[in-house]
């Protein structure tokens, strides 16, 4: 079972090409670190940031489908974290908390004029994004295939209604189970299952013959 404590998709520097090698893996609760984050110790904040930025940014990017908006969302999430740092529970893994904040921030952005404007000019073929998503194996053909599949899947995700997109991204991309999805979205467990089921069926229809 995949949980935020043990994500099914740990950051893979071979895929992303960028990263922060000094960051320990996400999902390892570090009470001492979190205790220092609570006091807003700069060094602890830096470590916390290095550890969780990719989780936040990746989720935001998949939900919003736009690099600039994902950056806005990540900034907003870390602003909220900074403000609420003293309420952090050092005994608990902060990943689910960050996932919830990120999802909520994305939801706020969806409702904003900025998001609607950006969707009009939405470009999942964003060359910058494609470059970021390259395999890093110096294999242009493989890169092209990965990039094309990424583009098709992301484009299909962006066609889903936002609640369905959130359900499938949290479940399959973020690796949460239905219970965690339900907690993140503040809906019932059964509702989370049904929503995921509908999302998967809808996405399958959108991707039919394209994968």
């Amino acid at each position, binding site marked *: *079972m*995949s949980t935020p404590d043990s994500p099914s998709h740990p*950051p*893979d520097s071979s*895929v*992303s*090409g*960028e*990263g*922060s090698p000094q960051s320990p893996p996400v999902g390892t609760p570090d009470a001492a670190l979190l205790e220092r984050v609570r006091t*807003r110790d*700069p060094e602890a*904040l*830096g470590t916390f*940031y*290095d550890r969780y*930025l*990719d989780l936040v*940014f*990746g989720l935001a990017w*998949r939900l919003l489908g736009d*690099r600039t908006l*994902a950056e806005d*969302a*990540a*900034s*907003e999430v*870390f*602003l*909220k*974290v*900074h*403000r609420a740092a003293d309420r952090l529970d050092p005994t608990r893994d902060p990943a689910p908390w960050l996932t919830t904040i990120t999802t909520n*921030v994305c939801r*706020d*952005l969806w*409702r*904003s*004029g*900025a998001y609607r404007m950006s969707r009009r000019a939405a470009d999942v073929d964003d060359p*910058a994004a494609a470059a*970021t*998503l390259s395999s890093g194996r110096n294999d242009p053909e493989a890169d092209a295939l990965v990039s094309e*599949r*990424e583009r098709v*899947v*992301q484009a299909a995700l962006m066609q889903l209604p936002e609640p369905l997109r959130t359900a*499938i*991204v949290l479940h*399959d*991309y973020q*690796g949460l*189970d239905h*219970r965690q999805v339900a907690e993140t979205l503040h809906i019932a467990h059964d509702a989370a299952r049904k929503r995921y*089921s509908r999302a*998967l069926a809808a*996405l*399958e229809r959108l*991707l039919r013959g394209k*994968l």
Partner: protein
Amino acid sequence: MSERDEYALTPAERATRDAVERLARPRPDAVFRARLREDFVTGRIGRRRGLTPSRPWFARPALLLPLAAGFLAVAVGIANRGPDWRVRSADGEGRVLVDGQAFTARERAGLERRLRRGGHVRVEGELTLDLVASGTAAVALAPGADLVLSPAPNRWWSRDMSARMTVGDAYFSTGRRFRGAHLDVRTPEAVVRAVGTSFAVLCEPPRGTCVCVLTGLVRVGGRSAVPGQGVDIPHGMRRVIRPNQVAMTLPILEDSVHRLHHQLTTVGGDLGMD
């Protein structure tokens, strides 16, 4: 993946799920990463203005405030509205025309609906009409009366009440909630202002207008006077103004005393004067 419903997925759905699972982890570029890190670590992020997530359209202050103000204005407007005119009694043969629509004494409900906010009232035949606006004012119209009656005074503002008579006798009494309001009656010969009283206006062209004051004080002016200007007529007296604007103050008419007493007796309860 204990809850992934593996058994229920079709091959196509499984492929779809795998495609989502295999999506790469996009990462922010180095410049953004470094800038945000610096802001987060130094606390500058808390001092800069964060994104202001847009609220749903119905929760936006720009819309909510005018909407709330509108609702408030409507609510206050409704609360301010004075009482409607009710038909206390309609006795005798004849009919009442309200804004041209005729009612007999038996069609009281329709008459009351039509008269709720006043109107042009003409009493024909031998009919006598008693109207009351609960707690505020009462008007009795004798056969032959013709007047335009305004709504009863509002509660807090727009507390003017007026009547414009062309002919006939009308008897006015004000109630407890009339306090602070004023009643102006205009006839072809006179302008009458009362601020809490019982009085009669007898309008008999071409003989003139007679204002009989049973209680309180009424100010009576000539036809060109502004309401509130003129001669104070105390209780027990009457003011007669001829069409040529010759005026005199005399003792009240017995018939007016009788009729106003009768009005106060019958609608005193409705006016809160018990």
